[in-house]
């Protein structure tokens, strides 16, 4: 691409990969950034300054658990001073009234709270941590502070049957938005695919429930439902196009076109410690590589959908075929689509998941599972547990 690309609108700031939770679908890379390698306060503030100047108007302050950064208030203030809208994406663990108060004073505008299940014990089992009570408290604090609350839930085999109860929970918590996103399988989720992949019937039931609730709740709460690409044969327009809408800054300053892209072996992603955001966005090989449509192979190259889905997800193409430049195998037109079909059609037991809460495993170990469910591989205890 020779012409200058459109400026990015949004920045995903992964402030720390440390997290008290261990969700088996976590979108952090398998190789977590150590806390000692994280950007300093000044470096994050400089990222926000550059981002604002370059056209970014919105940032998700995420992680891991962003509350683990003791300087989160300063980072929020720097983003706000740069004209950037700040939304905190948190597990809720560690969000006290005082902390929230100082974040609001620093300019925080809204919060997205993750929930794993509507049932406390099952939620804690999925998270690999007793966190549900903290989430409930956090939701109340957020609303009491007058901030808009979004509840996000990553859906999979062990919570798809509970979408109705999850919607009830979000309504009870006075959320203005619920995002129910089916698991995308790379990184941790790919490692846990056997445990997380739902059945077609389960998905159809959940989809019908969502339709019903959406009609019921119209005008009161926004209900977002993201279908899993494995099942509908349609590739997702990942990130709205490679290097087209947003960028991700990892805890150590690595800049990526998508948070999952750290898995691509020869991407050679740039770092804010070495380069300006402007150069990174406009000129770095990592960002120009799959921008637009010129890089595409067949069948994407001559496909009428190429400007709509941009050939799907590069990380999924790499994860399943070993070549990031191939058509996303989730697409029914991909020559590799059989890989996805084989996973989806493999027979598996999808009776309602275990009813009794399972004992929590120590991080990094497999949770002990009952006969009906496949054990999760939890992420290792984030290096963030160690002193920063």
């Amino acid at each position: 691409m020779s012409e200058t690309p459109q400026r990015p609108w949004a920045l995903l700031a992964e402030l720390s990969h440390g997290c008290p939770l261990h969700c088996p679908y976590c979108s952090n890379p398998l190789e977590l950034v150590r806390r000692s390698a994280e950007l300093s306060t000044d470096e994050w503030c400089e990222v926000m300054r550059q981002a604002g100047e370059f056209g970014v108007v919105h940032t998700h302050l995420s992680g891991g658990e962003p509350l683990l950064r003791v300087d989160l208030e300063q980072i929020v203030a720097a983003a706000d001073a740069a004209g950037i809208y700040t939304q905190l994406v948190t597990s809720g663990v560690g969000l006290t009234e005082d902390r929230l108060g100082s974040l609001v004073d620093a300019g925080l505008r809204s919060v997205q709270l993750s929930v794993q299940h509507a049932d406390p014990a099952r939620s804690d089992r999925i998270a690999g941590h007793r966190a549900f009570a903290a989430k409930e408290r956090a939701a109340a604090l957020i609303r009491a502070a007058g901030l808009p609350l979004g509840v996000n839930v990553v859906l999979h085999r062990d919570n798809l049957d509970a979408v109705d109860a999850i919607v009830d929970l979000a309504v009870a918590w006075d959320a203005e938005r619920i995002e129910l996103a089916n698991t995308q399988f790379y990184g941790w989720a790919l490692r846990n695919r056997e445990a997380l992949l739902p059945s077609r019937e389960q998905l159809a039931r959940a989809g019908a429930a969502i339709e019903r609730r959406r009609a019921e709740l119209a005008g009161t709460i926004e209900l977002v439902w993201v279908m899993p690409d494995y099942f509908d044969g349609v590739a997702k327009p990942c990130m709205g196009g490679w290097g087209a809408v947003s960028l991700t800054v990892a805890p150590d300053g690595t800049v990526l076109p998508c948070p999952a892209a750290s898995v691509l072996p020869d991407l050679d992603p740039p770092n804010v410690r070495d380069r300006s955001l402007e150069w990174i966005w406009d000129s770095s090989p990592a960002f120009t590589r799959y921008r637009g449509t010129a890089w595409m192979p067949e069948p994407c190259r001559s496909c009428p959908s190429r400007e709509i889905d941009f050939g799907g997800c590069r990380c999924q193409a790499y994860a399943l075929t070993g070549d990031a430049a191939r058509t996303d195998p989730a697409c029914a037109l991909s020559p590799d689509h059989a890989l996805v079909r084989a996973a989806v059609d493999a027979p598996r037991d999808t009776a309602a998941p275990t009813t009794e809460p399972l004992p929590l495993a120590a991080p990094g170990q497999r949770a002990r599972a009952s006969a009906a469910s496949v054990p999760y591989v939890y992420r290792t205890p984030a290096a963030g547990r160690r002193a920063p």
Partner: protein
Amino acid sequence: MSRTPGASTRTDARPAPAAGPAVTTAVDPAWRPALSPGIMLRRDRVREADLLVLPERVVVLTGRAADIVRLCDGRREVAAIVGELADRFPGAPVPDEVPAFLARLREQGWLR
């Protein structure tokens, strides 16, 4: 982070065109519209545009939309907003279009 990178929010910040004038909806002239909590109105100097930034979305305000929204400070009543705009833009169909536009934004949840 807890959202999968495949979630719909990856197109969060894609701008959507602002609502055009709507069919007239009854609007109480004593309503004092204000932006809903967590919504920010700002000038984007890079794109030379006026934006409403929401928790998960950015809306580009076109035409006179930003001039209208800027007056929604929770103190001015609709009647006053209409009066001010009518003075500022003589000849524009302000009394017809502005209340309907405000009603549309309220329906979206952006004004209260």
